């Protein structure tokens, strides 16, 4: 009965106009934030605590001959020093693949790898003692270039081949396609290591509860990854650990990855051995050294087209440097390879993607997950091809973009016209033709400053697809005062996605948003909800929240129907009231009645995305259930004397499927654009023979308010998707994907030079200008 009513309510919801969805509402956590109230992990430390510091390798590759902890252990204020021998459970901290020990043994494989832990009564004592743990190494040859690492006979990083994955796409007959092409070009593009850099570094605080359970408060995206790993590291039964996510100061991927597991394990080990509260937090330089970074790629694209601009063949070779441990590298290469042609239809595609181990620091999950690299190379080569063909950047895109009925590189049929709509809106809003004319005039009049305009487009396979089980759970319950509580293992770390879950809940129950509360993610209270990654929280988590809210509504409706002598399915839920036949009861009256009748208003919502199918031998199939589309126009001014590139304006159009929270979307559009601009123009973690030489914010510079474009135009396109809640598509990561491609295109338009390596620092731009003048 109840299920039937829930189904009926779903139909009603989707048929009528939304009350809150798509309206301008404030985030549920905004008020607390402006009052300085949210409690991040460091804010929850009370009273005395121990401090844990890791002893980190000072060489990138070598055998560990001896670890002498005694000079550190005998120092004042030091409680304990731990090495791999002391780990009570399993010495394995790899988030998905068990290739990474929590504490190194036998050998170290990258600079800054943790070798021992020092537990002290003060941070200063722990830090100083960490310098006194003596580790003797037998240095090994350091391999930092993935091309070298791929050669037969190259020194092995791990006890396995350095090539972790060879990911393939085989579509059509690429040789034939090149033969039939009038123009064929081949270009190589390179991208750099950057760090996601959440401003709150990795941090965990643990303490012992009565009854012997360790509680660990942690800054993380993935509650259950931390829980599952730390239980094994401690070697304790599951009920002996509880993990709670505190307010989290940024995620951007790294907080879903390896390092939150590390700090949680450090703190919990200290509490395990001493019974005392313990805090483990990364310093900024520690975070910038060991936090999983964005993978550098070398991408060679060979593309062929007819004279009329139609693409006939595309060959990509993608080499991805994942550093010394795999982390998510085997999945990032998949996403990059799937998207290697950009959002264009090519009948013949051959792609080889390699995930390669080196002695560089680990790369892993970072906002965009391989898409920024793939799209940079795809958009650049398309522009270079257009120039060869005498076509404009717009013409080549109009000819080749994915439209309804097009087949992607994996031969998946595109159903909707989201890309075309984004393209049209971005071109129109940027006043492309007018700007092209103005730029021409400006450049004629100016010798030093040169302006340029560029466009880039994307498609982005939604949520996990082949990258994991795409499910979510949400627990929703109603309190006696009528407030509805939503609690899930999905986490808030800045994206605003949990506000979307609250909006979906309020919408479904006809309540104002202020009646919905979010409870902290806590393994003692909620089951695993899957990872909070891949821009999937609104899309997939929203479906689980809808499922839960519909169940609550169905139960409440049965009670209200009796009170109103009406049919449950005919009830209207609106403005905190339940109505039928001109009669009304308030939400609180019905909730009260449920409590009186001992009717439970606590449910579990669940959703799992349809499985995706593709052939790993050919890459052919439908790896994702739906795609987000986008187009970004960048306008820049290049100072040809200093090499400085200024971004004047960005016009961003993204097909979000359904805008659940438009105000939140604008912040994500702008923020992602600015983060992407840092990737395009300024950011690079530099490894010198494996050693990170700029792990600080004065030599690794990220965009400030002054670097922000004069204007970012955010255009919301809504072409309903098939999978997400109310048609929503993935958005969290998307705006970071295109800035590099569109800014580099604009620089090429301004200077006539295609700069094929990121970032476009003043130095690089000057060098390229200089080369071109020779």
């Amino acid at each position, binding site marked *: 009965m109840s299920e039937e009513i829930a189904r009926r309510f779903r139909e009603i919801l989707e048929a009528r106009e939304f009350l809150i969805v798509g309206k301008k509402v*404030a*985030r549920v*956590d*905004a*008020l*607390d*934030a*402006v*009052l*300085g*109230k*949210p*409690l*991040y992990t*460091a*804010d929850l430390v009370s009273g005395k605590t121990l401090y844990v510091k890791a002893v980190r390798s000072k060489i990138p590759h070598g055998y560990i001959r001896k670890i002498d902890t005694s000079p550190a252990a005998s120092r004042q204020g030091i409680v304990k020093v731990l090495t791999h021998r002391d780990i009570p459970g399993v010495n394995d901290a790899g988030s998905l693949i068990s290739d990474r020990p929590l504490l190194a043994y036998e050998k170290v494989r990258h600079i800054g790898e943790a070798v021992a832990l020092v537990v002290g009564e003060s941070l200063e004592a722990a830090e100083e003692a960490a310098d006194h743990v003596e580790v003797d190494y037998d240095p090994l040859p350091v391999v930092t270039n993935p091309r070298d690492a791929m050669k037969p006979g190259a020194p092995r990083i791990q006890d396995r081949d350095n090539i972790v994955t060879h990911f393939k796409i085989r579509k059509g007959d690429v040789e034939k396609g090149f033969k039939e092409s009038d123009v064929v070009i081949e270009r190589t593009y390179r991208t750099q290591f950057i760090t996601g*850099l*959440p*401003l*709150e*570094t990795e941090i965990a605080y643990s303490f012992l509860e009565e009854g012997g359970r360790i509680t660990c408060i942690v800054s993380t995206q993935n509650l259950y990854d931390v829980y599952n790993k730390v239980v094994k590291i401690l070697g304790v039964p599951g009920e002996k650990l509880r993990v709670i996510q505190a*307010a*989290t*100061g*940024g*995620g*951007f991927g790294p907080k879903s990855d390896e390092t939150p597991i590390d700090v949680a394990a450090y703190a919990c080990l200290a509490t395990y051995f001493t019974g005392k509260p313990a805090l483990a937090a990364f*310093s*900024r330089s520690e975070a910038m050294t060991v936090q999983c970074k964005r993978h550098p790629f070398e991408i060679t694209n060979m593309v062929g087209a007819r004279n009329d601009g139609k693409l006939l063949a595309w060959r990509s070779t993608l080499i991805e440097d994942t550093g010394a441990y795999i982390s998510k590298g085997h999945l990032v290469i998949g996403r990059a390879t799937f998207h290697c042609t950009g959002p264009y239809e090519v009948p013949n595609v051959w792609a080889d993607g390699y995930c390669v181990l080196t002695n560089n620091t680990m790369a892993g999950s970072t906002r965009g997950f391989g898409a920024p690299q793939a799209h940079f190379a795809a958009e650049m080569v398309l522009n270079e091809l257009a120039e060869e063909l005498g076509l404009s950047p717009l013409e080549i895109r109009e000819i080749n973009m994915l439209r309804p009925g097009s087949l992607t590189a994996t031969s998946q049929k595109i159903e909707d016209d989201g890309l075309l709509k984004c393209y049209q809106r971005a071109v129109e809003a940027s006043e492309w033709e007018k700007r092209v004319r103005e730029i021409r005039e400006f450049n004629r009049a100016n010798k030093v400053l040169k302006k340029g305009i560029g466009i880039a487009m994307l498609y982005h396979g939604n949520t996990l697809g082949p990258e994991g089980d795409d499910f979510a759970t949400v627990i929703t319950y109603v309190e006696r005062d009528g407030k509805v509580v939503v609690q899930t293992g999905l986490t808030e*770390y*800045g*994206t*605003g996605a949990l506000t979307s879950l609250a909006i979906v809940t309020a919408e479904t129950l006809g309540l104002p948003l202020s009646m919905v509360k979010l409870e902290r993610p806590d393994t003692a209270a909620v089951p695993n909800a899957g990872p909070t990654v891949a821009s999937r929280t609104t899309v997939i988590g929203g479906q689980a929240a809808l499922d839960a809210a519909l169940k609550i509504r169905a139960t409440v409706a049965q009670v209200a129907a009796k009170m109103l002598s009406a049919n449950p399915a005919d009830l209207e839920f609106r403005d905190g009231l339940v109505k039928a036949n001109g009669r009304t009861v308030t939400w609180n009256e019905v909730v009260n009645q449920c409590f009186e009748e001992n009717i439970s208003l606590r449910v579990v919502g669940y959703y799992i995305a349809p499985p995706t199918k593709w052939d790993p031998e050919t890459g052919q199939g439908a790896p994702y259930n739906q795609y987000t589309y986008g187009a970004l126009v960048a306008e820049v001014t290049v100072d040809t004397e200093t090499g400085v590139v200024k971004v004047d304006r960005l016009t961003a159009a993204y097909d979000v499927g359904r805008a659940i929270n438009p*105000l*939140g979307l*604008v*912040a*994500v559009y*702008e*923020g*992602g*654009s*600015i*983060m992407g601009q840092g990737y395009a123009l300024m950011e690079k973690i530099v490894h010198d023979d494996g050693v990170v030489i700029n792990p*600080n*914010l*004065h030599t690794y510079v*990220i*965009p*400030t*308010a*002054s670097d*922000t474009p004069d204007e*970012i135009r955010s255009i919301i396109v809504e072409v309903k998707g098939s999978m997400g809640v109310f048609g929503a598509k993935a958005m969290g990561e998307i705006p970071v994907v295109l800035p590099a491609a569109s800014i580099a295109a604009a620089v090429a338009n301004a200077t006539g030079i295609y700069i094929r390596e990121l970032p476009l620092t003043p130095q690089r731009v000057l060098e390229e200008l200089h080369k071109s003048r020779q």
Partner: protein
Amino acid sequence: MKAEFMVNDVKYVVEVEPNERLSDVLRRKLGFVSVKEGCGVGDCGLCIVLLDGKPVNSCLMLAYQASGHRITTVEGMGDGTRLHPLQQAFIDVGAVQCGFCIPAALLVLKHLHDTKPDADREEVRHALRSVLCRCGSYIRFEEAFKQVSRR
């Protein structure tokens, strides 16, 4: 040694170590946890508080140096019952993402608003340069300032 200062109009007398940073005293001894730390060396600006109305990095200042001065943190921005207009504007324009830099960004803009309520865009951006926001809410902050100065 003793340090004596006003925080958000309340007088505090605290025993501090000579090498104790103002940020640590505010956070740990007095409980003003809105003061964040992002680097500890003055690069990120998340620890900014107002000292006699002017922004300072509290991680670069020793607690005793603040003795005799007036300190404002975001906890003291409203008047106790109502939000400061900038706080309300931050909510209205959707400036909050992860929230970690919000206290510092608010204080920097409060100083600008107190000293130059009609500051233009370049001046707003210049002031905000002292606070890093990795979520990239800079344009939202700017919008919030604009909204308040229009009134």
